[in-house]
């Protein structure tokens, strides 16, 4: 009985030590592609996706003929097809027309285009949530369309759009793992490789998951901090307290 106990403790002990050692060893191996690829891929795609989304939303709100229909068509296409398929078309499909991108660039393009479709809907509905009466009040004090948009509508829409836009940023962070399917060496593909080397898939994927979770935790904290900063009530209330 006692012997079995010792055997179990020893085996388990060795196993636990082995796993801890592997995890410590592999941590920098995972963190490097995370910082270099996953995070830059996320930020670049989000940046371009946001600019494109803003344009797509504004041409719809301003009701510009032709462009509005194009925006609706665009959203229809990019929301209606899988992100993975869009990645494949840009990376594997376009070369047959002589258009070649490396994996990283193809991923940035695909993520940006896909994200723009979703984010443009967020921005459009945020703009439309600002009561029309405020725009009318703006026109009545002599503002023009551009001034009404930049001074009144967009600042308020930004606050409404902020939480869902942040959600889409968090979603994108994890979706970048799809880039592993078009040869990009990001955190997920490294985790796959390391798992194969050590033959500890469970713990390797747990570790990668932990890093994703940490990034998203930081983003969530950042979100609630920025949301508080965006409150218009804050400054005046603080002033009155003084």
């Amino acid at each position, binding site marked *: 009985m006692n012997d079995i106990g010792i055997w179990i403790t020893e085996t388990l002990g060795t196993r636990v030590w082995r796993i801890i050692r592997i995890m410590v060893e592999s941590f920098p191996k995972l963190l490097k592609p995370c910082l270099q690829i996953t995070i830059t891929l996320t930020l670049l795609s989000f940046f371009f996706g946001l600019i494109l989304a803003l344009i797509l939303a504004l041409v719809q709100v301003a009701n510009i003929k032709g462009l509005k229909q194009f925006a609706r068509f665009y959203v229809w296409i990019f929301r209606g097809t899988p992100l993975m398929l869009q990645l494949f078309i840009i990376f594997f499909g376009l070369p047959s027309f002589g258009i070649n991108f490396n994996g990283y660039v193809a991923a940035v393009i695909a993520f940006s285009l896909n994200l723009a479709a979703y984010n443009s809907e967020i921005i459009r509905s945020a703009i439309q949530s600002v009561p029309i009466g405020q725009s009318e009040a703006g026109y009545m004090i002599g503002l023009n369309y551009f001034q009404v948009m930049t001074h009144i509508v967009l600042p308020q829409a930004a606050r409404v759009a902020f939480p869902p836009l942040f959600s889409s940023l968090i979603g994108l962070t994890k979706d970048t793992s799809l880039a592993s399917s078009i040869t990009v060496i990001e955190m997920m593909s490294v985790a796959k490789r390391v798992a194969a080397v050590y033959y500890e898939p469970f713990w390797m994927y747990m570790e990668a998951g932990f890093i994703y979770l940490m990034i998203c935790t930081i983003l969530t904290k950042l979100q609630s901090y920025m949301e508080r900063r965006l409150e218009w009530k804050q400054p*005046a209330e603080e*002033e009155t307290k003084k």
Partner: protein
Amino acid sequence: MLGVKNIHKSFGSNQVLKGIDFEVNEGEVIAVIGSSGSGKTTLLRCMAFLEQADDGIFTFDDLSKDIRKTTKKEIKELRMKMGFVFQSFNLFRNMTALQNVMEGLTTARKIPKEEARETAMEMLQKVGMVDRADYYPDQLSGGQQQRVAIARALATKPEVILFDEPTSALDPELTGEVLEVMVKLAREGTTMVVVTHEMEFARNVADRVIFMEDGVVVEEGNAEEVLSNPKQDATKRFLRRILRKEEEE
């Protein structure tokens, strides 16, 4: 000074204004009364070009024009000389009370910030809101918001201010403070067109009352006369109904 002739406006198949003639003279306070759905708010909104009328002639000072052919530029110039106070206040929620009042001066009229601030504070003083200058609309009561909205309309020194049921969205105990401000403005000689349900205000302050029903002006004249001695049956019916409601309250 400001007038419309033969204004028509339909929303779909619903004819809201059926040929309205209307004229405001300088320094005059006009109360537009009538039951809801009579078209009085639409009339006011057409005069501010917040609705595009289907037909009619628009006059403002020397300008007289087919209302359908007014250009964007002309509308903008007209609005520069007009103030508008909305039923739902419509303060800019991302700006403090002071910023709300300054916006028309700094952004639309390119007046230097310091000068604009001075004018804005003066206007807030006038409506008794100086101590709330740095508050955001969400932190103010309805009555306070409407007073700020009046200050915002005043700040640009308009030749005429249009009021669209300024107290209708307020709790009864808050209407007093807004009406008080409006009485003060009227006494100072501000040209005002007020769409209202406040009969007491109409009687005490308005020079002229216009009674609308079903898209036409049914009766118009001296306030005291129309309200105490209405000639038309429709006016009589309306006043009786309003009086009964006020007594019930």
